[in-house]
């Protein structure tokens, strides 16, 4: 009772529990067995599977695009958008020439619940939880900020060494299985060309670096592409974004996801801060989910299309 029978009847305009997200992923795979598969890249600290949906039309180790949502647990609009993206990819393949061309040449990997322990905790105990859930020995405060745990300027300014801080970086780089699993996946794949990590909320599209004021060597191209992607996003509902490198646009943040991916050679490394209506912050009303996902998708298509048309 109350469970959608397929991904057509799934309610994309509402927030969902972790088990509903897992069920959705299984349904999408079952409905599209030749196109969508589920890869379990690891386990969270509490033993939950770290599921990644792979959208592929064939080939072996094709160049790929990675998208993750929900690495910060309380940013519910991101997981909800991830569900919508997954369905959008399936719906548009074969109909929309741009996504069809991309998928005929590249694979897309989508991790919707990147921090499943944290997401579960936001549903049952603390809606405002951001971090992972691994205990910190000697402290009553559990969890690590998984966006400060990467081996890119780890421990520099813009992260905390205090376990009770919301930006606690963890004891060592990649100490969190939720992070380490992505690291191992990216390195073993070896052919990821674009990596997009999605957060909320400040209405920004950002690229490396966050830990240093040094410019990324592809700064000019990354800036121009961000501008183009933001223009596309804004054209849909008028949502205004800022864009630029992380350290100049927000503040210094070390140990961040896309700094690591960029240093691994993934040129098109971007991170989003999704829509902020100005009144709700992390509590964006569910009627904002679909417009947020739609406008974000519009800009994601710009990034993905550019990565496809500019091989390196």
């Amino acid at each position, binding site marked *: 009772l*109350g469970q959608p029978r397929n991904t057509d009847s799934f*309610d994309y305009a*509402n*927030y*969902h*529990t972790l088990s509903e997200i897992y069920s959705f992923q299984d349904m999408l795979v079952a409905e599209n067995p030749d196109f969508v598969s589920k890869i379990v890249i690891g386990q969270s600290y509490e033993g939950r599977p770290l599921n990644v949906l792979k959208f592929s039309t064939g080939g072996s180790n094709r160049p790929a695009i990675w998208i993750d949502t929900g690495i910060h647990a309380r940013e519910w609009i991101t997981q909800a958008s991830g569900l919508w993206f997954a369905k959008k990819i399936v719906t548009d393949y074969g109909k929309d020439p741009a996504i069809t061309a991309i998928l005929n040449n590249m694979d897309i990997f989508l991790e919707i619940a990147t921090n499943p322990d944290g997401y579960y905790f936001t549903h*049952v*105990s*603390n*809606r*405002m939880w951001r971090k992972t859930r691994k205990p910190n020995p000697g402290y009553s405060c559990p969890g690590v900020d998984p966006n400060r745990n990467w081996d890119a300027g780890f421990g520099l300014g813009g992260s*905390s060494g205090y376990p009770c*801080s*919301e*930006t606690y970086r963890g004891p060592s780089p990649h100490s969190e299985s939720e992070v380490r699993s992505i690291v191992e996946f990216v390195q073993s794949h070896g052919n990821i060309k674009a990596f997009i990590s999605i957060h909320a*909320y*400040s209405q920004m599209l950002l690229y490396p670096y966050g830990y240093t004021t040094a410019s990324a060597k592809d700064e000019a191209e990354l800036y121009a592409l961000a501008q183009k992607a933001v223009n596309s996003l804004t054209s849909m509902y008028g949502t205004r974004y800022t864009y630029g490198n992380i350290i100049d*646009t*927000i*503040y210094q943040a070390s140990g961040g996801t896309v700094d690591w991916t960029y240093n691994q050679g993934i040129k098109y490394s971007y991170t989003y801060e999704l829509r*902020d209506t*100005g*009144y*709700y*912050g*992390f*509590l964006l*009303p*569910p009627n904002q989910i679909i417009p947020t996902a739609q406008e974000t998708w519009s800009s994601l298509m710009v990034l993905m299309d550019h990565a496809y048309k500019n091989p390196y």
Partner: protein
Amino acid sequence: RETFEGHQVLRIVPKNGVQLSLLRNLEEMMEFELDVWKGATRLSSPVDVRVPPHTMQAFKSFLETNEFEYSIMIEDIKAILDAERKQMEFAAR
């Protein structure tokens, strides 16, 4: 379950460099038990902070002493969370 009863989110806009640097240190001000939702970036860019009820008065005094302009972005977090939960339950049914 944490209900967040009495918690508010304040939106603070730094107007000068001194205010900006004070806001950049909010997370270290343990006595207020703040949850910084959106950190300080630049002048005129708003900072959003969740404040629990038992430190609300002290934190507002701190803001007023330092001549910050602020507004209440979320008056009652609990009310929004309750509505969110009801909406999810309704949708699931």
